[in-house]
């Protein structure tokens, strides 16, 4: 009986992230538009975009192989599984025990691995430029992310996200230098991984300035819909990750009743809205960097992660 209710909660969580992801992106776009005094499209525009893409035919390049057609599904599945592993409104969900934070990083890595391959599959120079820059960014963002993971794991004594969230929600941790560094580094990595300003511009369609968009340039129709959906989910995943580790406020702890779940879900939506607003604010206030400034940006994240970890190695109370 307990198992069944656990699985239902897990299923609800997986559906919830799926349903909320496009809304979050639409919300960020709307806020950005309002901040620059434009009307902007409706917050629900991403859903309409996805539906329209699904109804369109796929135009496949002559040279595209099976890998190109499989990649959208593999990418989407890997990101969805990773999102299912992150506690959103409740901790201790059954999937949470399958894998830990390191595995989540690696699952996102798999998604990127296949996308980068697909970018090279058609054999145009734009796909190549996108893939090559994407792996350069990832090569710096992934180690930074792992160091952040080390940092959190050393504070909470675990790499298991549910345990981390439980620990940070239920006991007094206080302000810690290392966690502060990890938070800043994680925000920087999240900006890079989600192809946001200042690393990449999600709205651009000028070929030479874009990274992620260049890589998926040849996709169309339902394939593009899956890839876009994957990107929406990834943004939601990173915000959930930051929320569950650094803001485990009102998250439903393991084994609590339906009311706690409802409060948790409400708090989660508030957290998403706040994070989305801050993201929009930040993006309107900064400009995109040159590609070769990105290593310095991510190098700073790497250094912050390393310093945070070193501090914890030196003393557990930092």
């Amino acid at each position, binding site marked *: 009986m307990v198992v069944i209710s656990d699985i239902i909660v897990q299923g609800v969580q997986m559906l919830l992230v799926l349903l909320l992801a496009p809304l979050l992106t639409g919300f960020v776009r709307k806020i950005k538009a309002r901040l620059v005094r434009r009307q902007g499209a409706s917050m629900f525009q991403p859903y309409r975009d996805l539906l329209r893409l699904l109804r369109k*035919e796929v135009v496949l390049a002559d040279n595209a192989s099976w890998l190109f057609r499989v990649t959208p599904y593999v990418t989407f599945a890997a990101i969805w599984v990773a999102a299912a592993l992150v506690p959103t409104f409740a901790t201790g969900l059954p999937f949470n025990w399958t894998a830990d934070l390191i595995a989540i990083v690696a699952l996102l*890595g*798999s998604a990127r691995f296949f996308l980068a391959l697909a970018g*090279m599959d058609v054999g145009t120079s734009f796909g190549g430029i996108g*893939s090559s820059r994407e792996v350069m960014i990832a*090569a710096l963002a992934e180690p930074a992310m792992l160091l952040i993971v080390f940092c959190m794991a050393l504070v909470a004594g675990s790499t298991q996200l549910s345990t981390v969230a439980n620990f940070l929600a239920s006991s007094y941790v206080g302000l810690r230098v290392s966690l502060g560094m990890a938070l800043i580094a994680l925000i920087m990595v999240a900006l890079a991984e989600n192809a946001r300003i200042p690393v990449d511009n999600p709205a651009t369609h000028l070929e030479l300035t874009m990274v992620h968009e260049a890589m998926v340039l040849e996709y169309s129709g339902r394939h593009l819909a899956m890839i876009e959906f994957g990107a929406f989910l990834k943004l939601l995943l990173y915000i959930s990750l930051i929320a569950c580790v650094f803001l485990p406020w009102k998250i439903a702890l393991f084994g609590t009743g339906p009311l706690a779940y409802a409060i948790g879900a409400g708090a989660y939506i508030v957290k998403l809205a706040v994070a989305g607003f801050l993201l929009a604010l930040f993006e309107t206030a900064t400009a995109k960097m040159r590609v070769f400034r990105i*290593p310095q940006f991510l190098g700073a994240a790497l250094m912050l992660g390393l310093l945070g970890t070193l501090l914890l190695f030196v003393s557990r109370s930092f």
Partner: protein
Amino acid sequence: MAPVVLQMSCVAGLLGIAGLTIFLSRAKSATAIVYSLTLAVSLLALFGSIRSLLGGVPDISDLTLPIGLPWLGAHFRMDALASFFLVVVNLGGASASLYGLGYGHHEPAPHRVLPFFPAFLAGMNLVVLADDAFSYLLCWEFMSLASWALVMAHHREPGNAKAGYVYLVMASFGTLALLLAFGLLAGPAGDYGFAAIRIAQHTPYAATLVLILMLLGAGSKAGLVPLHVWLPLAHPAAPSHVSALMSGVMTKVAIYGFIRVIFDLLGQPTWWASVVVLILGGITAVMGILYAMMEKDLKRLLAYSTIENIGVIFASLGLALAFQANGLKLAAALAFTAALFHVLNHSLFKSLLFFGAGAVLTATGERDMEKLGGLIHRMPQTSFAVLVGCVAISALPPFNGFVSEWLMFQAVLQSPELPQWALKITVPAVGALLALAAALAAACFVKAYGVTFLGRPRGAAAETAHEVDRYSLVAMFILAALCLLAGILPGLVIDALSPITTAILSGRMPIQANEPWLSIVPIAESRSSYNGLLVMVFITISASLAVFFIHRFASHALRRGPAWGCGFSDSTPAAQYSAGSFAQPIRRVFGTLLFHARDHVEMPAPGDTRPARLRIELHDLVWEGMYAPIAGAVGYSADWLNRLQFLTIRQYLSLVFATLVTLLLVLAIWS
């Protein structure tokens, strides 16, 4: 039959095949006969070693043969550690033989390969089995020479002669270091048996020297930076299935030697030894993968990637040493298991990838990635198997590479317990280096796979390629399946490795078979757990759900058309990203410092119709900073000493007289 007797019989069988081959190597059917025989013997040896490994803790068997040094004999022994490495060696041997059954038919000079192939396998088996220093060194030398002969199989190809020469010099250097190490271990009593060395007390100075000498000797064979220079020359020079053995298996035999001496024979380690091993491992991992990233020759790229993996293994071993020195047995067992798991994993996927490179070589005659491309259309099965290998080596779940990296990171997280400050600072820094290496490995294999197999063909050879023979494909698919199996059922592998950690570190990881749903749990579930099987099931389910809904509700319409490419759809295949251009961002980030990389653009003046040229300048700083000066010094002193060869008789006589007087003077002053 005792396990060691079975193994020795297999070795005798392999040597017998090698002898037989000398007589029939010119015969037409020799290739098929030799590879089927080695396949059979390797499978038998594999079976024996697996049975011995799973047989339990006390399954140790000895054998003394009345050969070797007089009155001493040659000692051979099989314990858990040896059994595990025999599994790695013979699994590699069996798959290479199976691959050779098909690949061997493309060999232009089979009589240069066939006799040495079984001899090489026998040599590797013998090194792992040897139980006294004399037999160990003899077998080590035999293994080196057999592999040298295989490197020189195509001695007329440009570069191979140099590869063979550098290999020979480095192998002799390595053996010299090992010889001195064993000399120190044997001590003044001079008992060369491992049993006696294990009991003997070693002074701290001797132990330090032994560690340094083992890092030089075993490290040079395994490819530790800066002793790696021979590896990217020699490994690609051999035929591809031999490259697979050298890169995937022989480097593991070197690691076996290191483990045997440092963990088993030397006794309790000192903590600072682990700092040396950790730093060397971390640097090796990052340097190896950066070299690989810059490479455009497919087989050289794989050889450089081996250096990275060796670095990862040595870093894990360094962690194990650090924990062991501080008496943290559980953490030491975790780090050691991670190292052994990675040994197995690397032998699986590196063999697979070298087989794939061999298949590409057979189909196109090219190793230069910049002339390949689009092979996924011409060689669908090979490219699928290689894709599995690339995903596995990039440490992506649910494949096996991820599991060993995961275990290693879990071991890193145990290290705040360590008391020494140097370790407290080194371990996280090395952890960062390893994370960087893992991320760069993924980038490197996106490049390798994307440029070779995806995109459009860049030349005639890639356009007309054909799928390779069935034997090669079967060998690749078996290895690919093993990569997946070890990735989704890692608990079984960890349990199989536990007799080794029990015997060597007297600690072990928790029994994983007791965990529900085949999870792996290094310490406790609340700290960390990973379940490869469930991750794979979840990915499969969610991908199938996505496919189901898309195909149920979305449009099915599909049209083939020219690539859009922002309007540049008719560009030539040469406009695609190549290996060099793909690596350019990473070269700019890391290469300027580590390789003194420079891009020179030669731009013609406006109005001039000559093409602009981009020239990339890369320096191998290790070669230029360390080996070139040594080679220069040796050459200079040889030139100088050469004068002594052309003296007149009077000058010779005065030289002899002067020497005699000097020696007598020294003697007089001394006493």
